[in-house]
């Protein structure tokens, strides 16, 4: 040790299975280091978006700088970097991890190693982080710390005998944990006098400052006034502020190699400051960027339509606002015969899509309808022109299609070995081709598959999680296009095509899918005054059919004793129900129909 400032920095993240106490532990660390007083403490400081709390996942990161005076009397700066938690965001997780030297692996003493514990531990290992196991919830009567320790050692092959045993809830042994962080997580390396290389691991848009970049400086320094270049986009900006998270933004003169903080540079949208990109000096740029950058691209598209037509502009405004903060989200206007004016939107995956839809509802109070999600297909027409199709409705007639190609991904699936059989089965059902299989240790297996993306986006992740009782993890990457026997599945209500339900499926799945959609719609479409046939067709061929019976009566007899209030309420409710319906020709379809037909589970 040469007494460098870096010796007193520890950059780490906390990884855990859902509910194993990650957020509570983070809160406790904040509190013990005096950053947030117990009184001001909001429940779970780190998870701050409502949707995140409800789903128990983290989407937007919170990063915090703790100051801890160690037993040695020295003051340490502990940068706690949060990580998101879903396959749609695996890439973001990997960039957050890349900003750290170590990870606290939190394991619930009553539950032991579970699902994401494993997946996350593996991710952290692949980023070469020092892993510090932490046994949490030791205050609970059913706690069995030794069991948790044994499981960590056995299942993850991580030494855990010395793991700090804490209760984040009760604040037990938090000092011991802080000491362990100081002693067992390495100090950052990097030369503060080298050429600037700083990793962008998150960013968000601030109304006053523009994009705020969360960064970990690997080499060199960054300070206000400096001209910087973002190596992937090539764009040049002048730094307007550098600062640290304490936990609110506190400006500092500069950020040096090994430090974590934020910078602002009058950047207009987060798409210009992409996660994984390298910040360097414009005058004296680094020779090579930091490894691991991937341009995040939308993989899944769907139509988003205002539930009430007149809200088009409001939806547009909201999408624009969401986009400045979300580099992976794109949209453009489109129209649907059934739904009118709306937008074609691109997402990382289905969860990303659901989050955007939910945010439109909660943050902007907009009720919207989404159409079946689709990947981007490549069509070569008989005249030789090539079209990229994001919307099934834009598919040319079958006779004009010479080649129909779909995107293929390389999927890496990590699972405990006892699930290999059942996972291979679901991969096969989804037209996967196994490329490789490897035992990481005697308990864990990585399966590598090539799979059509449209099989992955619907419910593959959910199926994987449920088949492995949560222990499986998935990462996938686009590798290219391949010709495939695909067909367009249409839905007709009362013999009229409803374009919003159209989807592209593999020929072999069309029947099952068609049946499913018809059955689902039958459940959801209310009885009308007439019979409503629901048909699924491929081309002109009807492949599935259901019928919603006509209702015979809808009459309420009394307004007893002149009490009309009940009658009024009933009629108002009925009227309100009608408003939530979409009218297709003569058929009224509740909005939830559009999401319900997506919840496909081919058991």
């Amino acid at each position: 040790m040469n007494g460098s400032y870096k010796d007193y920095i520890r950059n780490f993240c906390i990884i855990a299975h859902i509910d194993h106490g990650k957020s509570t532990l983070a809160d406790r660390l904040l509190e013990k280091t005096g950053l947030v007083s117990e009184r001001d403490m909001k429940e779970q400081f780190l998870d701050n978006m409502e949707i995140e709390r409800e789903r128990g996942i983290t989407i937007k990161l919170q990063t915090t700088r703790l100051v801890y005076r160690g037993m040695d009397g020295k003051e340490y700066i502990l940068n706690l970097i949060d990580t998101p938690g879903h396959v749609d965001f695996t890439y973001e997780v990997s960039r957050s991890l890349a900003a750290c030297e170590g990870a606290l692996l939190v394991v619930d003493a009553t539950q032991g190693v579970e699902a994401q514990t494993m997946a996350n531990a593996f991710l952290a290992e692949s980023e070469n982080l020092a892993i510090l196991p932490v046994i949490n919830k030791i205050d609970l009567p059913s706690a069995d710390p030794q069991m948790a320790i044994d499981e960590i050692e056995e299942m993850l092959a991580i030494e855990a005998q010395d793991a700090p045993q804490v209760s984040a809830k009760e604040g037990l042994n938090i000092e011991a944990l802080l000491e362990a962080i100081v002693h067992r997580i390495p100090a950052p390396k990097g030369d503060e006098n080298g050429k600037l290389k700083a990793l962008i691991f998150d960013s968000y848009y601030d109304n006053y400052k523009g994009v705020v970049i969360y960064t970990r400086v690997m080499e060199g320094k960054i300070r206000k006034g400096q001209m910087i270049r973002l190596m992937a986009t090539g764009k040049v900006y002048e730094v307007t502020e550098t600062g640290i998270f304490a936990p609110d933004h506190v400006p500092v003169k500069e950020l040096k190699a090994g430090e974590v903080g934020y910078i602002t540079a009058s950047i207009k949208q987060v798409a210009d400051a992409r996660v994984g990109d390298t910040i360097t000096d414009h005058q004296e740029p680094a020779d090579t960027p930091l490894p691991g950058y991937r341009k995040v691209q939308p993989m899944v598209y769907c139509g988003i339509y205002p539930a009430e037509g007149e809200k088009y502009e409001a939806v547009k405004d909201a999408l624009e606002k969401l986009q400045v903060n979300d580099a992976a989200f794109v949209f453009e206007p489109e129209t649907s015969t059934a739904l009118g004016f709306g937008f074609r939107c691109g997402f990382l995956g289905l969860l990303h899509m659901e989050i955007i839809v939910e945010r439109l509802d909660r943050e902007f109070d907009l009720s919207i309808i989404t159409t079946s999600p689709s990947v981007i297909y490549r069509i070569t027409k008989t005249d030789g022109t090539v079209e990229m199709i994001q919307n099934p409705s834009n598919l040319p007639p079958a006779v004009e299609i010479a080649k129909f190609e779909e995107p293929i991904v390389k999927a890496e699936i990590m699972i405990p070995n006892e699930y290999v059989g059942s996972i291979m089965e679901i991969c096969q059902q989804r037209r996967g081709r196994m490329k490789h299989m490897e035992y990481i240790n005697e308990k864990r297996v990585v399966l590598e598959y090539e799979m059509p993306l449209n099989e992955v986006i619907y419910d593959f992740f959910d199926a994987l999680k449920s088949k492995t009782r949560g222990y499986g993890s998935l990462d996938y990457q686009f590798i290219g296009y391949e010709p495939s026997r695909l067909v367009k599945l249409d839905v007709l209500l009362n013999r009229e095509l409803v374009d919003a339900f159209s989807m592209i499926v593999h020929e072999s799945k069309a029947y099952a899918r068609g049946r499913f959609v018809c059955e689902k719609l039958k459940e959801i479409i209310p009885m009308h005054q007439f019979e409503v046939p629901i048909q699924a067709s491929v081309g002109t061929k009807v492949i599935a059919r259901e019928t919603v019976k006509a209702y015979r009566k809808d009459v309420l007899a009394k307004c007893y004793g002149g009490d009309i209030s009940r009658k009024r309420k009933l009629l108002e409710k009925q009227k309100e129900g009608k408003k939530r319906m979409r009218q297709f020709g003569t058929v009224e379809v509740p909005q939830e129909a559009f999401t319900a037909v997506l919840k496909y589970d081919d058991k």
Partner: protein
Amino acid sequence: MMTNKLGLYLHIPFCVKKCGYCDFLSYPPGEGEKKAYVSLLRKEIRLWKGKTDCPVDSVFFGGGTPSLLEGQELEQILECLRDVFVFEKDCEITLESNPGTLDEEKLRDFKSLGINRLSMGVQSFQDDILRFLGRIHTADQALTQFELARKAGFSNINLDLMFSLPGLSMQGWEKTLRRALSLEPEHLSYYGLILEEGTPFYQAYKEGRLGQEDEELDRRQYWYTVDTLSGRGYRPYEISNAARDGLACRHNLKYWSLSPYLGFGLGAHSYFEGRRMENTRDPRAYQRALEEERALSEEGECPDGFFCPPCVEKLHLNTRREDMEEFMFLGLRKTEGVKLSRFERRFGVDFFQVYPDQVKQLKGRGLLAQEGDRLFLTPRGIDISNSVMCEFLF
């Protein structure tokens, strides 16, 4: 025949025992409770002294079971009403009754008080059905009481009947209807069973003990009733009511015609001077409000000097649009439907300007028909009247 004369409704919340399908405000009275209630009712009525000179042409004792009251108690109420309000000479005075609570003497008493219309809750002439419903009387008792009512001099009698009941076959209903018609009542009400939340029937239905509702049979029984009554010289003048010419229930028509009425007693409703009022349903609150004359509703003081009795829990001044909505969805219950000229007179605006698309659409779907000035439900429109009526809400 639409007048702006006033109707009076008196709620008598007492029953010998609650029926399984009933969700009205009613319960068996405690010791001395009837007497106390009558005295509160009189208190409430007296509050209106000098407040309106609008003539009264209908009085309706509903419940519960108003025939549980003694003649003397009814007399006290009527006396009080006559003292406070201006009665028309031919005022219709209806009393709802349960055949299980009547006898010759009571009927004679009722008649002598000026009650000129008797409504009998017969419901069925099948004893197994009556037991199933939880009624306290048999079919024979109903027949006997009807004859006694005639003997007592009631020349305007209504029978309430229920169809679309679990266990009631088409033949069973035809038989009940035949028995009813053999008595030659002046008026018939026929209600399909509605499973109201909170009733034992609803619970039983939820738990699958009542079987499925059979909409097809419901409609068959309903239209059989309408056709049979029409063939027998009755005029179905409203979705669930038919009467001999000139004997339609004046009081009930007020509800469908957006005419004014005042309700007295627990949970009673009023529509008066454009306001809808609702009395408290809580017996203790009702008593307190009247004894201490302390208003339950904060809106008790109306800026325009409108009088709101203290026992009113909800007071709402209808907007013009609400009046229009109610004019439509209530009016369409009448077989003759709504008169467009009446709408235009009342609201001073062209009907089709207010409802430009609805009528065209509903006519196109065969649910609504127009003949000259009248807009009315077609038979199919009657079957699904709610979905037609809700189109007239804004």
